[in-house]
C-alpha cells in the first residue's frame, strides 16, 4: 500500500446524512470481479440528476469528500471505498462513519478523518463560497486546514500508523504465525468443520 502522509486538494460538499453504501455504489456494479475501474459507478443514481453536486464543473477536481453524519452505512461492500478512490478521492471528512465502511477504508488506503459536525458545516460553507479552496489533511499531525480554519481530527491510532507506513495488514499478521498455529492446537474437538 502507498504511504499516506498529508494531502492537499479541493473538496466536494455532500450535504447529505446517512449516505449508505448502496448510494455510493449500487449492487448492479458489484457483479464485476476486478479491483479497479469503479469510478463510473460512484453515486450512480444521484449522478443522473444534473444538479447533483458531483456533476458541477467547479467540483470536478475535488479529492476530499466532505459528507454529513453516518457516512457509509449498510452493506459491507468494499467496492464503495474502491469507487471513491477510483474516482479520485483520497480523503473523506465526516462527523460519524459506519464501522464496516471505516474499517474497509483503512484497509484500502482511503483516509476517513472524523471531525465535529460544526467543522463540517464550516468547510461546507467555505467550499460552497469558493470551490477552489485548498484543504490540507495532515495525517501525521491529525489536522485539517481549510482557509483560516484549523481543526484536529480523529482517526484510529493503529490505522493511522499503517497508513503512514503503507503497511500490508496480512504481512503484519503473519509475523504472529507461530501464535496462530499454537492457538489452533487448543481448538476443542466439538467445533465444526465445513467438509
Amino acid at each position, binding site marked *: 500500500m502507498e504511504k499516506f502522509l498529508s494531502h492537499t486538494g479541493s473538496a466536494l460538499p455532500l450535504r447529505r*446524512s446517512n449516505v449508505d453504501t448502496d448510494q455510493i455504489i449500487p449492487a448492479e456494479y458489484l*457483479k464485476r470481479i476486478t479491483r479497479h475501474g469503479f469510478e463510473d459507478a460512484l453515486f450512480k443514481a444521484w449522478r443522473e440528476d444534473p444538479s447533483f453536486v458531483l456533476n458541477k464543473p467547479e467540483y470536478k477536481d475535488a479529492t476530499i469528500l466532505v459528507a454529513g453524519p453516518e457516512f457509509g452505512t449498510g452493506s*459491507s461492500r468494499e467496492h464503495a471505498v474502491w469507487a471513491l478512490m477510483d474516482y479520485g478521492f483520497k480523503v473523506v471528512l465526516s462527523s460519524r462513519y459506519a464501522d464496516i465502511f471505516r474499517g474497509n477504508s483503512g484497509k484500502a488506503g482511503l483516509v476517513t478523518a472524523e471531525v465535529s459536525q460544526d467543522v463540517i458545516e464550516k468547510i461546507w460553507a467555505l467550499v460552497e463560497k469558493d470551490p477552489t479552496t485548498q484543504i490540507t489533511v495532515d495525517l501525521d499531525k491529525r489536522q485539517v486546514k481549510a482557509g483560516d480554519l484549523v481543526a484536529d481530527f480523529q482517526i484510529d491510532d493503529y490505522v493511522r500508523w499503517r497508513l503512514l507506513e503503507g503497511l500490508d495488514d*496480512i504481512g503484519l499478521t503473519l509475523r504472529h504465525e507461530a501464535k496462530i498455529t499454537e492457538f489452533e492446537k487448543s481448538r476443542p474437538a*466439538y467445533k465444526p468443520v465445513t467438509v
Partner: protein
Amino acid sequence: MSQTLAEKVWDAHIVHQANGEPDLLFIDLHLVHEVTSPQAFDGLRAANRKVRRPELTLLTEDHNVPTQDIDQPIADLVSRAQVDALRNNAKEFGLKIYSLGDIDQGIVHVVGPQLGLTQPGMTVVCGDSHTSTHGAFGALAFGIGTSEVEHVLATQTLPLKPFKTMAITVNGKLPQGSTAKDIILAVIAKISTGGGQGYVLEYRGEAIRSLSMEGRMTICNMSIEAGARAGMIAPDETTFEYLKGRNHAPKDKDWDDAVSYWKTLKTDDDAKFDAEVIIDANSLTPFVTWGTNPGQGVSIDDVVPDPNSFTNPTEKTAAERALVYMDLKAGTKMRDIKVDTVFLGSCTNGRIEDLRAAAAILKGNKVASSVRMMVVPGSAKVAIQAEHEGLPAIFKAAGADWRSAGCSMCLGMNPDKLKPGERAASTSNRNFEGRQGPGGRTHLVSPLVAAATAITGHLSTPDEIK
C-alpha cells in the same frame, strides 16, 4: 472478573494481544459468497498465498443467482462470470461450495445455521453485513470487507479493536400480530441507524427468550441497520434444541462437552454494559418504515411524520428528502399506503417459520389484483421443507409467485427487481433509495404484515383479514 457474553467470546479467541495494537482474533467459521470474494482470491494469487484453513471455510451462491429456471445457465453474463469465478476459486483453493441446484444452496446466513455450522461461542465472519444473523446462537458474528475476506482466507484471523457492549432488554410478551421483525424495527427507530456504532448489541429479556431461533435470527440480522456490526443472544435450551441432530452439530460426547461449555455463555449477573436500552414488548404494534433508512419507521397505526416534527436539523432534512423519494405526504395514515409488490424472503425473513406465518394468512385468500407477490425461500432446504408442509400450494392458490432460493429482490443485483416508481412491502432489511431496483420504493414489514398487505393492497395487519 464479571464479563458480558460478547467479552467472553472475544477473550476465548485472542491469538495475540499487545499494547497499541488491535487484538488478533481467531475465526472459527468463514462464510463466502460470490460478490465480495473474487478480488480477495485474486489477492491471494498475487501474493502466492493459500487458504490457511479450507475446512473452516464455506462458499455458497446467493446474491447474483436467478430464482427461476435455475437449471439453465445464468442469463446475465456478468453475473454468470462472477458465479463462475467463485466456482473456479473453490476448485483452485480446495474449498467446499454449495452451488445453484445443490440441496444445501441458499442465502449464506440461512445455510450456515441450517447446517448446524453456526454454534454458540464461535467467531463467524462473512463479506456481508448481515453476518450479524449468526449472533442469534451466541456467536460473535460480523460482516467484513473484501480486504478482510482476503485476510481471513490467508490467516484465519482478523485484527480487531474491541467493541463496546450495549444491552437491549425487551421486557414483557409480544401481543398477537407482532413479531421479532417489529421488535428490531422498533429498536432501530429508537436508537437510530448510528446508535449501535462501535457496539455489540446483546438482546435479552423475556420477549427475546420466548422467541424461536428463527425470530432471534431476524433480530440479530438487522443489528447492522442500527449501526452495530454484531448482535448476540445468549444460548439456551431453544438454541440447543435447534442445533441437536443437525449435520454439523457435535455428536455423542462432543455434544455433551459442547453443551456444558455453551451453558457458560451468558452475561454474568454483575457484569456492566457500556450502554443499555429498554423496550416494552407488551405495547409493541407492528412496525413499518416510511423513509429511506431503516431507522425511519413507525407503528402501522401511525401516520407519515411531518419533517418539521424533527428537532435535529440533519434528521429534518433527511426526512424531507425521504418523503420526496418515497412520494409520500406527511400525515398520511400508514395503513392507507398502497403497494404494487410484496416481497417475502431474504436473510431477514426467508426462513420456514416466516413462510408458515405468511401462508397461514394467505390460505383461502387472494392476493389483490393490483399486487404482485413474490415468495422466495431462503435456501433450497427451506423450499423443500415448505413443499412437505404444502406451503407453495397455498401461495400459488392465492396468486403469489413461488420461487427458488436466493437473495432475490432484497438487493437488486439479480433479475428480481422493482421497476422505477414501484412501491413494495418487503420483509427484507433495507429501504435505501434504489435498494430493490433503481427508483423503487420500499416499506420494510414483518411477514404477517406482508401477507395481509398482499391481500388488501395497502399496508395492513392480519386482523383485517377474514
